[in-house]
Every structure is written in C-alpha cells, then in structure tokens.
C-alpha cells in the first residue's frame, strides 16, 4: 500500500463574487501519509476550511476549484478528486474519506434520529440491509463511547449534549472505515473539558483504527498535542510546514513565530505586554503584493519582501518555509 494517501498539488479555489475574484486558496500543496495526522493551522479567513471543503468538492458556488490536483490513493487505485466524475466522488465521500464539521448542531439533521443518520452512511456505501446498517450504527456508538448506546440510537440530535453530538458526527465519519478523516475545527464549539474528551477519543481511535487525519484548527495547543505534522496557512497559502515537534521547537516563518509568541503563557505572568502581530488579517480582496505577510512582519526587508512573492522551499529536512530570509532570521 502506498504511503502517500492524499496529495494536494497547487490547489486554487476562488470565489467569483460581485466584487471580483477572491482566491481563498491560492496554490496550496499538502500531503498526508497513511495513518498520520496533519494539522492545518491558521486564523480566520486564511482559507483552511475552504481547503478542506475542496478536497471533497463541497465548495458551493460562487466558489470553484480552478486548478490543481488532489490525488487520493486507495488500495486499488489513485484518483484525482478535482476531475473525478460525480459518481466516483460520491463513493469517496463517506466511503473513503469521512468529514467532521465544527457545529454539531447544524451538521446533524434535526428530524432524523442519530441512529438513522449513522445507518444512512453505511447504506449509501455498502450493500447491507437496514437491520445490518442499524447494528453497525450501534457498533459505532460503542466505538465513540456514547453511554447507553441502545437508547441513544433512537434519540434526536436536540436531545443530546454538544459533546455527544460531536461523538455522533465522529461515528458518522468513521462508519465506513475510511482511510482519511477531515476534521474541520471539531472541538472549537465545545467546552474545554469536553474538548479534552473528544481529543482523547480521536487519539484512541487513531491508534486503534489507523485512520489518517487532517485536523483543521486555529488552536496551536491542540495541534501540538495531537498532530504528527503541521502546516501553517496564511492568506490562502501555506507559509510553513514541518513535523510538529520540529515546528514548535524551531519555528522559522515570522508568522508562526508571531502566533506562538502571542499566546499568554506561564512565563509572561509578569504582565509585560504580549508580543503581538500588528495589523489585521487582510481580506482576500486586499492581499498585499509580494509576500502576503510582509505588512505585518517585523523582519520585513524592502524591497524584496514587497516585490517578490517567496516560494515554499525546504530549509532543512522535512521543514518547508515560505520566506525569503528564513535562514537569516533564524540565526
């Protein structure tokens, strides 16, 4: 079995609005290996969610995947999800790639029981009877550690708490034993102790089932504790990518450094002002020329940073940075 499970090459997804073309994802390349967890981090508006939606072609108009390829390699074959036929894509969705969304209340259909919703996924992808699908749903509820699963099978989403709904979503995503799970901010809407439960569950499932995960979040702490590899996104582009241990101990891109320093931690208890990244996240219509981060960068050096957009290059083994002066800043 090939090690490379999902390979995104130069993905461009743009929205054609009345105000012009907005490139939410502007040339993103990522790869996820079988059984590994990749964290995709960035602030709001950076394009991480759109990237995730693009993988399963869930981006709705006026958004469109304009170019690039997303190669998904299963045991038998390799397909490009961007150009695949609708029928093939539907088989992949839910069958080979599962997705967990941020808001469990709105992602679950309020008029169907959770059992029905899990069973539906099974029936869509496997030729099984209703009874078999239902028993599989029960199995899934056991797997995600929902208490009283027999009763819960016939419960409606509004009867469950936020944490439990999220577990149901995970069950739906895992029902057909996919090779990859895309989790779009799965714990952002949850309380911190519930988040701990869900993260622990995801870790446990990963070790048991060997599913690869693409975890999208803005929370660096979550990424640090759960991901093998990390990619940092800013203004539609990946600006840094490295194994997690390497990235957090040795960040190279000024944006990554800034994000890490902006968090209050035990050492800043002396109340000295937090190190901030000045300015705001630019709107896609107002992306700066050259390096998209340069107006906010404290290491900026004219004229190169303004004139020339940097490329994503390998600075040390497995560690990629999109910055002209990464090495110099580091020393």
């Amino acid at each position, binding site marked *: 079995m090939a090690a490379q499970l999902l390979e995104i090459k130069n993905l461009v997804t743009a929205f054609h609005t009345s105000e012009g073309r907005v490139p939410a994802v502007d040339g993103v390349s990522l790869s996820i290996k079988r059984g590994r967890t990749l964290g995709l981090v960035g602030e709001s508006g950076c394009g991480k969610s759109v990237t995730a939606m693009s993988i399963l072609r869930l981006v709705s108009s006026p958004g469109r995947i304009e170019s690039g390829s997303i190669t998904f390699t299963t045991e038998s074959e390799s397909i490009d999800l961007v150009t695949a036929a609708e029928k093939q894509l539907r088989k992949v969705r839910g069958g080979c790639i599962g997705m967990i969304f941020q808001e469990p209340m709105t992602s679950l259909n309020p008029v169907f029981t959770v059992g029905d919703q899990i069973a539906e996924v099974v029936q869509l992808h496997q030729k099984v009877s209703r009874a078999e699908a239902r028993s599989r749903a029960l199995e899934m509820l056991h797997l995600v550690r929902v208490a009283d699963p027999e009763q819960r099978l016939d419960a409606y989403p509004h009867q469950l708490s936020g944490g439990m709904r999220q577990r149901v979503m995970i069950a739906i995503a895992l029902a057909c034993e996919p090779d990859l799970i895309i989790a779009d901010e799965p714990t952002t809407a949850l309380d911190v102790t519930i988040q701990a439960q869900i993260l622990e569950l995801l870790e446990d499932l990963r070790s048991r089932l060997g599913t690869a995960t693409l975890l999208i979040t803005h929370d660096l702490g979550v990424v640090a504790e759960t991901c093998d590899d990390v990619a940092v996104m800013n203004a539609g582009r990946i600006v840094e990518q490295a194994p997690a241990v390497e990235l957090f101990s040795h960040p190279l891109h000024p944006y990554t450094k800034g994000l890490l*320093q902006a968090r209050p931690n035990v050492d800043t208890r002396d109340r000295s*002002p937090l*190190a901030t990244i*000045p*300015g*705001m*996240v630019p*709107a896609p219509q*107002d992306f700066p020329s050259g390096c998209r981060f340069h107006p906010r960068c404290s290491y900026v050096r004219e004229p190169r940073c303004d004139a020339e957009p940097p490329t994503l290059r390998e600075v040390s083994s497995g560690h990629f940075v999109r910055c002209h002066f990464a090495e110099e800043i580091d020393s």
Partner: protein
Amino acid sequence: MSQEPMKVTAEINATNPSRGFWSDAWRRYRRRPIGMLALGFVLFLTIVALFAPAIAGTKPVICSYKGKIYFPCLGYFNRSWESPIFTKDKFRGTYPKNLKQKDPESWAVWPLVFQDPYRRVRENEWPGRRENPSRDKGYPNRLNLFGTDQYGVDIFAKMVHGTTIALLVGFVSMGLAGSIGVIVGALGGYFGGWVDMITSRLTEIVMCVPTLVLILALIAVVEKPTIWKTMAIIGATGWTGIARLTRAEFLRLRQTEFVMAARATGAGSLRIMFRHILPNALAPVLVPITFGIASAILVEGSLSFLGFGPPPPTASWGSVLNSARSNLQLWWLVVFPGTGIFFTVLAYNLVGEGLQEATDPRLREAKK
C-alpha cells in the same frame, strides 16, 4: 517582535465609502432587471397619477383668461382648486367654446386627450367632434382609445384618473395598516407578559374574521362610503400579518446584545424600541407591506366590482369593472381595467419580492 502602534488597524479599510444598510440593499435591488422593470412601472403609474389631468381631461392644463393665468385642470384633484371665476362666468364645465366666446384673447394648453372621466363628452363640445358613442357603438376608436361605457363616458380618461385612486388605495390603506401593525406588534414583542397576551389575542380576533365580510360590514355601517373611508377600512382590517411579523422581530431582537448594551448605557424602553429595535425590524416588515399594497388594490377592485365601492362618479378601475357586470358584451370594459389591475398588482408583487431578496439578512452579515 516590535510593538507597533495600534492605529494601523483602522486605516486599512478607510478606502471604501461607507454604505448604510439601505444603500447596500438598493445596490442589490438594482441588479435584478425584473425588479427594476417593476419599479419602473410603478414609477410610470405614479407619473400618470400625478399628471392625470394633463393627460386626459376637458379642462385646460393652463389657460389665460381675461388677462390672468389659471390652471383649471387642478379641479380634477379638488373642486376648490378650480378657480371660482369659471363658475361665476357660467362656464358649467365646458371650456373650449366658452373660453373663446367670453374672451377672444384667451389661449389654452389642452390635455393630451380631450375626454372626461366623469361625464359624456357632448356634441360639438370640442369644435367639430361628435358626442361620445355609448353601448355597443362605444368600442375603442380614434377618439376613445379604450372605448366608452354604457353611458358614453370615456374609458381611457377613467383609467388615467383611476390611477390616482389605484395608487392611493395602496399607500393609504397600507400606511394605516402598517402603523397599527407595527405598534401592536412592537408592544407585544418587546414587553411580553400580559401586554403580549392582550395584543396577541386582539390580533387573532381581527385575523379570524373574514376580511371581506368585515369590510362590507364596516362599509354598511359608515354613512357615506367615499373612497377615503374605503381605504381606511381596508387599512384597519389588514394589519394583522404585519403585527405578527413585527412581534416576531421584536421578540428576536430584544435578546440581542446590542439591545442589552443600550440598556447598560442607561437607555429606557421607549428609546430602545424605536431607536434600536425598530430600524432593524423594518426591513422584513416592509416586504409584507409591499405585498399588502398589491392586495389592497385587488380588494378595492373587488369591492367596486361588486358594487360596494364608492358611488359614481368616482373614477376607479374597479368601478369600470362594475359597469362591465351588466354589459359583458362590451369587452373593452373588462379588458382594459382588468389588464391595468393585473399589471399593477404584478408590479407591486415583483417589487416586494425584489425588496425581500435585497434585504435578506442571510446575505448581509458575512462573518469574517
């Protein structure tokens, strides 16, 4: 990392001009060609209504008589606006001959079509013109563009002057309905409790009585049914949908944080209701008001058709339809007012739809 002054944040988006909610909504409305067409039609009707006496009438638009300038056509809007000198000089409403006879120096600018909405134009009233045909002979011809009714009164003139009524009916009745509905709904939605109970029950009671029956009953009670009273009655019975919608909006907006922030600043209930909540509640409420205008026009048309409208000689489209009832062979009595009502109601409905889309909150607030 440097500590740049935070002023940098505000300058970044100072480039675009500030757009309020309504100018933004207008921009979105403009993009729908059908909406613009409908709005254009409504505008066209408004112009016709305003300039009705100048388009069709037997009174001069402007004339010079005995050295002074007069605007006799305004008499169509209001009797008293027609200068008394013409009554004194015994014009008796006939201008062409009398003007020339009584003052050879006089000149006049005539309306585009010399016809009267209230009476039959007589033989030789306009030099060289025979009297208006009536009944079967009154089909559309060069002088009577839309034909005449069974009494010989020109339909085109009736339609033109009826436009004023068609528009007024909509605005007056919906203005009244809107005001009542908004106030009732706002009180119930904001205060809740027993106030809400009373207003809701009131709304339900009025809503449960069949509208047409209620209107007929009120008209029967009223002494002299004029067009204004009819409009008021339509308004007084048509506020319930608006009240319910306003109540729902107030209930929702009452919980928002900006309302709580206003309370934290020290604002009182009245201020919060009218300064904070109402501007936010208005957009969804305007839509049913627009549809209500269309509906009011239909109601007035129905009433007049059934014979319960204002008595003749009021010129309204519905009254022409009323004449058609007993004279169905005169097809022009049905076609022209029917088409007019149809297109007007259609136009208002399209404007309402366009308004609804332009102000839809889901398209508005895009979270960053």
